[in-house]
């Protein structure tokens, strides 16, 4: 039987929705027992949230001062030690999981599976390569622990009607002090988080300046939407990198995605392929974005976007 250890992502007090999505993926492994590990300096509130997530059999807390910030070099030896007896170790394919899980895998002497988008069996999974141009089925060796990250855009959060037991786990593994947290500058806004927002408005190079993104922020505010951007807009310095959607940015799956002034390079499309409805607004009617858009509108975004914003209630 599979025994799956999930590494919870959190900000020190609140659990990240990526955890419940990772659990939803793990729950697709038949007959698996799912255990969530919370590494923190103070884990109580996070563990309480984790224990409510459906499919979770147990929550383990590993509390020590060194775990105040999620440093891969500090967490990896603890995860590797805790992994003894487990068949799988999963984390979300967010910057947290992508930083940590490969380090865990190497300590366990195994390769890692990045970005699971589908579970075929306990050791067989699907993931995408070449910016989404190919979907590959991968098989982990049967006699090794499976260490993997889960593409959160491919899963909906597991439900929250559970009350799994919470236990403190051993936290005595030696950890290095050669990596130290200094600060976190969050680009936090009042807008919904890009990775979990039901609606996302996204801008490309055609916005032509950082100031012009204001028209998207106004539209997003009316829609209650998060705001994203293409790599071209990030490259041009119009918006910060945490807004980047695509192969080398965030992979998202909102119900509504509005691509505004985005041509639709494959590297961008791979970041939105699981979106519910894609709307494209672009002055070039031949832009590849229209090939995948559910609703397309050809025209000048600087005219259309303010008009749309005004027309919305």
């Amino acid at each position: 039987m599979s025994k799956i250890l999930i590494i919870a992502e959190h900000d020190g007090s609140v659990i990240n929705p990526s955890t419940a999505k990772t659990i939803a993926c793990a729950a697709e492994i038949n007959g698996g027992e799912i255990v969530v590990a919370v590494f923190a300096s103070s884990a109580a509130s996070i563990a309480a949230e984790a224990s409510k997530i459906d499919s979770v059999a147990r929550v383990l807390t590993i509390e020590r001062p060194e775990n105040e910030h999620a440093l891969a070099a500090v967490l990896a030896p603890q995860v590797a030690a805790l992994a003894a007896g487990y068949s799988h170790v999963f984390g979300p394919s967010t910057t947290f999981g992508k930083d940590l899980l490969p380090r865990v895998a190497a300590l366990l002497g195994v390769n890692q599976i990045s970005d699971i988008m589908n579970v075929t069996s306990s050791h067989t999974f699907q993931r995408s390569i070449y910016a989404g141009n190919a979907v590959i089925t991968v098989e982990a060796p049967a006699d090794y622990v499976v260490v993997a990250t889960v593409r959160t855009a491919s899963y909906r959060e597991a439900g929250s009607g559970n009350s799994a037991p919470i236990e403190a786990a051993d936290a005595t593994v030696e950890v290095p002090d050669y990596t130290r947290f200094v600060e976190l500058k969050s680009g936090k806004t009042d807008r919904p988080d890009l990775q979990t927002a039901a609606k996302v408005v996204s801008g490309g190079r055609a916005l032509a300046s950082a100031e012009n993104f204001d028209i998207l922020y106004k539209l997003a505010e009316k829609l209650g939407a998060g705001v994203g951007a293409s790599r071209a807009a990030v490259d041009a310095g119009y918006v910060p990198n945490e807004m980047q959607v695509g192969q080398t940015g965030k992979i998202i799956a909102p119900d509504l995605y509005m691509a505004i002034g985005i041509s639709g390079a494959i590297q961008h499309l791979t970041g939105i392929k699981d979106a519910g409805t894609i709307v494209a607004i672009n002055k070039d009617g031949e832009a590849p974005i229209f090939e995948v858009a559910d609703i397309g509108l050809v025209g000048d975004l600087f005219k259309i976007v303010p008009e749309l914003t005004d027309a919305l209630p």
Partner: protein
Amino acid sequence: MDKILVGLKRVVDYNVRVRVRHDGSGVDTDGVKMSINPFDEIALEEALRIKESGNATEVIVISVGSSAALQQLRTGLAMGADRAILVEVDEELDPLSCARVFKAIIDREKVDLVLLGKQAIDNDNSQTGQMLAAIWDRPQATFASEIVFDGDKARVTREVDIGLETIEIDLPAVITADLRLNEPRYVKLPDIMKAKKKTLEEIPLADLGIELGPAIKATAFEAPAERQRGIMVDDVAGLIAALKDKGLL
């Protein structure tokens, strides 16, 4: 700091749209343009700037792959790397084996800093740097957008999902480059000529005595599910009507 090691992976060029072979046996890369992985190019640019600012004495570029990767190493030398190492192996190595190759070279060369791209744009794994840091038992700073040195320490700003995180690491260490770390320089013709005089060492993989795997097997390749082209609307009123139709407004 003395030596910086930079990994350069030969990958299908960013602008090429690869396709799955009809028989599902793999991805068709015959005759397509190959380049240095873009993030590795950023890593090399950063190493060159560190050396130019007087913080390092030598930049070594390394690639793990077939002799075809000599082309990417020569480009690296033309950009300004001092010498190159090709660890020769015909099949593509898994990330853990690749990390072990880097570790073997680090032990031979006594490297102070390893700079890699945050991910290769072919397999999109984003693993090798983290794995190398683990088996080397040294710090890792992934997705770096700024690096500031202070003696035997570095302050690295990392592009994380919610913003920018800064960590301090002791050297030696592994840093992986994100998009905004820098803009790589263009290679000039005289530099290509100069690069021909630089040392390019070829080491057969077998000479390093590295344990390989356990690899994760690729058992099938499929083309991605295509989204269908939808409807076109003429104006904002049409757009609003279509959104209402789908229950999105």
